[in-house]
């Protein structure tokens, strides 16, 4: 466990540095065009080369990573909140409300996520905000279903009845006992979703339905680089490596955390 967790933690810390203080260390303005140095390869002044407009790729990548990661975090957090609210309402109130909410959740989950996301993003129009909305619309239902399940299980636990029977306030019991037992699986689930969401965002941006220029974004940058695969391969290689880095750091951390909870199937990686 130890090594993987350490590697994951280090990778995530580096990522956090890139995302939150990266703009301070970026050597160039990511929007600054300089046509005299366009499409240059790796050099001392531009450590990852320059793009079609002579912008520094390294600086752009720093900003682009920020964009992708921030959107994934927003999507995950907002869906988690929506899912939590609806899931717990369904579970606590129960009856017709539960039935109604569950049918709605069923419907949302009956759509293949990607088709649904593309449809919404396409109809709303491609932009960073709309892709965030589209991803939230398509992902809240799974959180809600999960929260509902957890709350129902927690409600059944003997100590809940016991504490109510012993005269504890019902509301207090829920806050003190039921909710904590939801948070652990919910946060684990949400953490797993970060990498997935990140992949969805870069994929949608790659097909032009996501973040739009001039905002730098990793998937969109790869899309733009398609023209230059022969002449300037660094334009697609670096953003791709960066996506893999980000997703890998979330995956390895998630993996080692899961091993931590379930040591039966744990095993170390070769790193």
């Amino acid at each position: 466990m130890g090594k993987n967790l350490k590697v994951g933690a280090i990778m995530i810390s580096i990522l956090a540095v890139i995302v939150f203080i990266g703009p301070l260390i970026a050597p160039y303005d990511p929007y600054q065009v300089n046509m005299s140095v366009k499409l240059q390869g790796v050099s001392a002044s531009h450590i990852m080369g320059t793009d079609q407009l002579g912008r520094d790729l390294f600086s752009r990548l720093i900003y682009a990573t920020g964009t992708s990661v921030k959107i994934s975090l927003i999507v995950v957090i907002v869906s988690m909140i929506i899912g939590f609210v609806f899931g717990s309402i369904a579970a606590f109130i129960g009856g017709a409300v539960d039935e109604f909410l569950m049918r709605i959740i069923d419907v949302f989950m009956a759509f293949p996520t990607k088709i649904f996301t593309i449809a919404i993003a396409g109809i709303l129009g491609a932009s960073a905000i709309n892709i965030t909305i589209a991803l939230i619309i398509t992902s809240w239902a799974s959180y809600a279903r999960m929260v509902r399940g957890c709350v129902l299980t927690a409600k059944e636990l003997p100590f809940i009845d016991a504490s109510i029977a012993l005269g504890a306030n019902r509301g207090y019991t829920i806050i003190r006992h039921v909710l904590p037992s939801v948070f652990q699986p919910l946060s684990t689930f949400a953490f797993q979703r970060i990498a997935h969401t990140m992949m969805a965002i870069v994929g949608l941006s790659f097909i032009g339905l996501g973040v739009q220029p001039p905002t730098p974004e990793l998937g969109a940058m790869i899309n733009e680089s398609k023209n230059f695969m022969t002449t300037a391969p660094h334009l697609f290689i670096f953003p791709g490596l960066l996506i893999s880095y980000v997703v890998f750091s979330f995956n390895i951390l998630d993996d080692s955390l899961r091993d931590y909870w379930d040591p039966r199937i744990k095993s170390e990686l070769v790193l």
Partner: protein
Amino acid sequence: MNLKLKKILCFSMTALMMVGFVGCSNVGASTKTAQTELKIAYGKDTGAVSEKGNGDMLLTIFAGERLVEVVDGEVVPSIAESWEVKDAENCISFKIKKGLKFSDGTDLTAKEVKLKFDRNIALKSFQWTELDRIDKIEIPDDNTINFYYKDGMDGYVALAGFAEYGNTIVGSNSFQTPGDPTTPMVEFIGSGPWKVEEYVKDQYTTFVPNENYIGEAVKLEKVTVNMIKDDEARVLAIQAGDVDAIVDYYHGGSAYTPRNLLSTLKEEGFQILKQEMPMTTVLAFNYTNNEAWKNIKLRQAMNYAINKDEIAGLFDGWISPANDAYFSDCSPFTTALGKQSYKYDPEKAKSLLAECGLEGFSPKMLVNSENIDEVKMAELLQSMLKESGINLQLDVMDATKFAEAKKGADWDVYSYYIGGPERRIYSRNEGRFDKSTPEFGASGCYTSESIVTAVQSAVDPFDENERKKGFKEFYAAIDAEAACVPLYYDAVFVVANEGVKGIEFVGTEPVFDNVTYKK
């Protein structure tokens, strides 16, 4: 289960190996042999089967003819051998050549000619033509067709409109109900040098020689036009040897070979053929919804603030910057002005802005995300305009949203074009600047009375010299008014394998009638 699993495993291994063999068997010796077939990559579907459309430009040029054509800015005979303007310019009468046949062997007479115009009028598809003003169409005999106008024919531009792609003449069997032009077009039967042999929507169209064509027969036995939507994919296709040539969209402006890949292709030994068009990409202002743009100083400031050479730099030197007013020297009617009124000067732009009281001006630019060059150019403009203290905001969106947003007031500039393929220069220029034409967009290039007068004097006269003079006036007028910011002159490119010989440009359209190919 065990057994089943084994079976599946064996099967899949075999399948994988077979795939592998197919993949590796791509080695062939090459000697230079004459090819009878040419494969072209093209970014649009040819639309040979269409409910309401008329077919794509390439299709209409390959397999169709119109009453007249426009070459070097002049209307020349085609299906019609002559024409006459009568009744105080209220009627135009075309004499149709005798003995013409469609590719399916049926006769081409005035009756068939009328079909297409009936269709366009019924379906209200009369962009860039004057068909909306037509009162009635008469066919006194097999070789005559008369068009009567409601309130007079609109000069030369109306005549040139008959050369529009949409007015390509097709046979009566083209329609689902033969002879009923309001029914969907189920086959493209034209009278051009080629005929459509096979059409698979969004995949390919094959053309073979039309044996009923009365002109000189084409040389190749077959041309396959592969529809490849992605610009980069077409380039990869020719590099991989899947196609022999790439042709830009005949209209220009979209679905073209990425300009910054042309140098690479040239280095790799492909021929690059270029034909400049009388089409200028400009930065247009939202003056109809946005009062500020009615101030000429602001329009001039924008002109001074943009360095066109740098924009042309986006295209790796393959496209010329629009330094010399509006159109390049590609047609007798589009001769350049010979002066550069607004040389790049950020200081001047700044002072003009100050005069307008617009320091820290922050205009919003609409950008169509489907055109990558447009996006790149917008990003370049954003960075460039900073020098003049203009803080350009970009709003990038897909084509539909773009079209929608254009109508609103919440934007300032966008990338637009004036002119077009040669057969369209009359109607397009009139449509862009004359508010009284149906094509006139609510927003676009700034226009004024002097510009409207000038454009009329350019597109109306039947006399060639008067038109030439008119065009000069027209350019001078839009230049003086700083109606928009000309950015670069567009061009049509054909990229072809070394062995492809005989690609010609008629007007601004690539033609493959005389092409031979040795591989």
